[in-house]
């Protein structure tokens, strides 16, 4: 790792490029807002990005890894290395405030903050409808159409909705 103030502009350029890479299944949120970028630095001149996977079996991960490589290369780095790291483990608490707002605008209830505690069914049930903000909702299924989503129903606006589930 050769992070010095001298190459700060280049590191900023990497982060700016990362802001343009989105989750292919939730195209409104960037990988930075999703909280999966652990670090970005220059390693012997190579742009290096450390990425924490969301769900180990998420098929979007390979796509995101390729898209990160392309975006950073397009920002002027010939050699780009994307490292998958598990430490620290990614949790939904890492999603930024901007990211949470964008999820809601996309129609996905943002994950409840769990502050490191194990997720419980009670915690998942405390989910407000992303359309009408009502808290009068039912948890329909802790599994959904993708690994990261649970399914709820809003009794107030009578819509089913999905939540980015807390992990």
């Amino acid at each position: 790792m050769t992070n010095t103030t001298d190459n700060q502009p280049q590191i900023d350029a990497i982060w700016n490029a990362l802001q343009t890479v989105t989750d292919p299944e939730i195209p409104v949120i960037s990988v930075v807002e999703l909280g999966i970028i652990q670090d970005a630095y220059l390693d012997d001149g190579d742009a290096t990005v450390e990425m924490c996977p969301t769900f180990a079996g998420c098929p979007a991960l390979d796509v995101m890894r390729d898209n990160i490589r392309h975006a950073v290369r397009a920002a002027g780095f010939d050699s780009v290395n994307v490292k998958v790291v598990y430490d620290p483990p990614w949790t939904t608490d890492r999603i930024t405030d901007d990211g949470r707002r964008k999820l809601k605008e996309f129609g996905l209830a943002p994950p409840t903050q769990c502050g490191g505690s194990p997720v419980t069914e009670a915690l998942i049930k405390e989910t407000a409808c992303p359309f009408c903000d009502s808290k009068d909702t039912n948890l329909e299924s802790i599994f959904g159409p993708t690994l990261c989503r649970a399914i709820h129903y809003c009794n107030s606006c009578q819509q089913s909705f999905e939540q980015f589930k807390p992990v």
Partner: protein
Amino acid sequence: MSDLYNASNLPADLKPAVIDLLYRLADDSILIGHRNSEWTGIGPILEEDIAFSSMAQDKMGHAAAYYTLLHELGEDDPDTLAFMRDAPDFRCCQLVALSNIAPDAPSDAADICNNPTRDRLMAHGDWAISFVRQFLFVQADVIRNTALESSRFDPLASLCRKIRGELRYHTMHAESTLRHFANGTDESRNRIKKAFVYLWPYALGLFEPTAHDQALADAGICPTQADLQSQWREHIDPMLADAGLTIDESVQPKFGGRTGKHEQALSDALADMQKVYRLEPTATW
């Protein structure tokens, strides 16, 4: 930290033990994933179809991550490990390889979708077997995962700390669904009882002792199987009792999986799981 091991500083005498441990974890994960995925599209109700498909996908992801750790220790690449090995090379327990069809089911099935395996599952599949297996497996998976979160083999410990949150959903599903059946009807209670009696000896086989147990425990890499089994029993016994499931302590465990001795069910599962890959192993996806 100097007291932690990784792929480059793992002592040579511990390496075969760690490799064996990773094969057990990976092969358990891919087989339970494959068997659970067989219900995709034909689950008994939509919610369970989605649940089993999601849990299958999670376990396939965990398998891929364990195979990647094996690759970093010098084994073949993950796809080759998953799709080119034969049954005797697999180190999964026999529980995860079992068919979703009861052994006494008829062998016939009408031709519905031009796929004999799927036709038979649609005609004779017993989801009670699949669910009770999932319950027994995931509780063991979580006990094992929790212990490995503080393993001295750091790449595995990091991965297990990452997997923890995902498994949480599997246990929530297992526990609430078991309560549902126990509080359901005579049919639901009888179906889970029958499945439980059939599966219990196989479930005990999850904790088959291995030649590496003591070395792994002494090195702080993984507790012994006996230790994990007693933690598992302490955890599940009250839940099983609440669900009206009685353990027959005289039952002999079904061992053999951890040394590559398997029933026909594993070869059947692999024939399906590996078929497409083996048509053209060099194809890129």
